[in-house]
């Protein structure tokens, strides 16, 4: 009997080990190592590494570029999340119905998601390019002057927001489409019998039933707004003058272009904390209200 439990434990550990190794090697160890790195200065033959404690974090609060990229990230999140969720719901409602060319529409909506971000950025680079870009050429037909969309600090972030929405909405649509299809058709029949308007049906039945999906999408969209920076490599490199720079790209620059591992680690720990706190907040506060009863 004891032998039996022993075996069961052993099996349990054996099943757990692969996942544990991966998690420790690629999540927990790097996190801890990053935190430790942030407490020490960089080492080079000229200047050996020394303990600096929270100095790196103080630098962070004194660094105007950090505040700039942080606020850019917030604007990016505010600009992309509500719109792409709204669009995703509308698209999902359209392709959930038996409209002509439904598969074609579904593919059309989903294509941007399948493209790698680098490819997307290369496409949009030629949309936004002044003079030769598609956007300028189309606007030119209506006699509108050429704009330097990516070269002007007041238009560069909105330009990137539009591109991100284009890229993301299709992805979120898939979740809403799945969500819509789990809603029992009886509800639609009942609503029809009761003579409920289409809007009423959406607002009172579909939307509340989609709330768990919305929570999921919301968390994903928020994380993505911090995670997605591939396009910056192609489009702007964070410029002009950091007008389109984002936290993750700034971390990359600090670590690999400036070779300042210590400060990059401090930035990373900050980003990690921010994301962890937000995710927890979303789970604990929003989760309570999303399940329709």
């Amino acid at each position: 009997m004891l032998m039996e439990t022993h075996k069961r434990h052993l099996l349990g550990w054996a099943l757990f080990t692969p996942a544990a190794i991966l998690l420790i090697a690629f999540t927990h160890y790097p996190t801890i190592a990053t935190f430790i790195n942030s407490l020490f200065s960089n080492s080079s033959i000229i200047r050996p590494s020394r303990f600096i404690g929270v100095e790196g974090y103080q630098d962070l609060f004194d660094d105007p570029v950090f505040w700039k990229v942080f606020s850019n990230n917030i604007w990016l999140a505010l600009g992309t999340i509500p719109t792409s969720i709204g669009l995703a719901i509308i698209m999902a409602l359209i392709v959930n119905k038996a409209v002509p060319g439904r598969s074609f529409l579904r593919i059309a909506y989903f294509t941007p998601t399948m493209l790698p971000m680098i490819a997307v950025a290369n496409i949009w680079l030629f949309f936004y390019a002044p003079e030769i870009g598609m956007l300028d050429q189309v606007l030119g037909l209506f006699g509108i002057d050429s704009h330097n969309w990516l070269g002007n600090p007041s238009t560069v972030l909105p330009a990137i927001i539009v591109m991100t929405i284009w890229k993301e909405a299709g992805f979120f649509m898939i979740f809403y489409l799945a969500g819509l299809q789990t809603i029992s058709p009886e509800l639609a029949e009942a609503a029809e019998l009761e003579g409920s308007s289409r809007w009423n049906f959406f607002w009172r039945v579909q939307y509340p039933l989609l709330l768990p999906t919305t929570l999921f999408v919301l968390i994903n969209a928020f994380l993505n707004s911090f995670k997605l920076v591939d396009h910056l490599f192609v489009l702007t490199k964070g410029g002009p003058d950091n007008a389109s720079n984002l936290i993750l790209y700034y971390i990359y620059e600090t670590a690999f272009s400036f070779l300042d591992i210590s400060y990059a680690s401090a930035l990373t720990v900050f980003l990690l904390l921010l994301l962890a706190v937000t995710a927890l907040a979303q789970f604990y506060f929003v989760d309570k209200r999303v399940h329709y009863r």
Partner: protein
Amino acid sequence: MQKTLRKMSLGIAASVGMALSSAVAWAETELTMYYPVAVGGPLTKVVDGMVSDFMAENPDIKVNAIYAGNYNDARIKALAALESGEPAQLSVMFSIDLNELRELDAIVPFDEVVKTDEEKAWLNSFYPSLMENGTSVGKTWGIPFQRSTIVMYYNKDAFKAAGLDPDSPPATWDELVDAGKKLTTDDGSQWGMMIPSTGYPYWMFGALAMQNGEVLMNGSGDTTYFDKPGVVEALNFWKDLGSKHKVMPEGTIEWGTLRQNFLEGKTAIMWHSTGNLTAVKNAAKFDFGVAMLPAGKRRGTPTGGGNFYIFKKSSEEERAASLKLIRFMTDPERSANWSVQTGYMGISPASYETETLKNYVKEFPPAAVARDQLEFATAELATFQAGRIRKSLDDAIQAVLVGSKSSEEALEEAQALADRILKDYR
């Protein structure tokens, strides 16, 4: 199920073992080299071709040449490989990475690798201005490979249409502005000129500053001169081209799409790396010319591009093999071919003496402009902590071009930051 798993893992183990043993048996020395490409055109093919020629000539050396993106990416990948214990014995990296690579103790000076008198003479066979970014503390750390200067490409057809002489491109700042005004059309379909201000703005600015009689840094890379009046003036001139003279679009101009702008006739003049020359030549549907950058108080351009480095983490044999490869790639004949195929310059006087390049220059004179300009060239901005200092200057330039700061303010801020970072190195 378990049986299949066991079979599979046996299979994997066997094939890994085979791969390992065969790699050892194949070649005596195996080299891994990373290299960047920063301009247009099918340059990876050219490099790969040169490398396979080398292996055909030297069957005992196997070279893995890995294309690693732009200059930044190449440095990151090579350093990451070294850090993680993957082999990399040599790489082509940004010529201005020198101080950082030295500080990381990642590279060896060529003076320690060359042995024979012939090899020592080879070290002195390159254009001296191309060696400026490759030498430090009296030693040679980088051997020029894909080297460039900034040149002025101009559309001769547009010059004719605007009533300008297509054979005398603007040679001074004043002439540049005058020509620009004539070339800029009222309906906005064609701009007079474009100087790119993303990607490598500090590089273009190095040219303007030098034309105004200033350099951006001292020779040992521990002091910058961003806030000198002459430097501020140079940035004002750049800004004025857009905001005052209206011969260039305002805001920043994208490095990556500028060639396309030029090829589509949206700008009559562009300043760009000579490394783009062959790509422009192959794609231009109009008659174009290439000229030295115009003079302010004098002519001037920074050199640019990539050098060969040998990494410290390498054995004696690997260093010798790397030297062999580098000598092969920088040999006059091959350097001439490289220049023809890309537009990058021949790196030694001897390469311009080869039949290949002599004939090419005769039939296509623009190919010699970058070389002729070397006489007026200075080193590219290369300091300690170069990434951060470059970035602070880039940000300052862009802030001025988009109108959010004055030149004085922006450059003073950049200088203050550079002073703070560099004071430890003085």
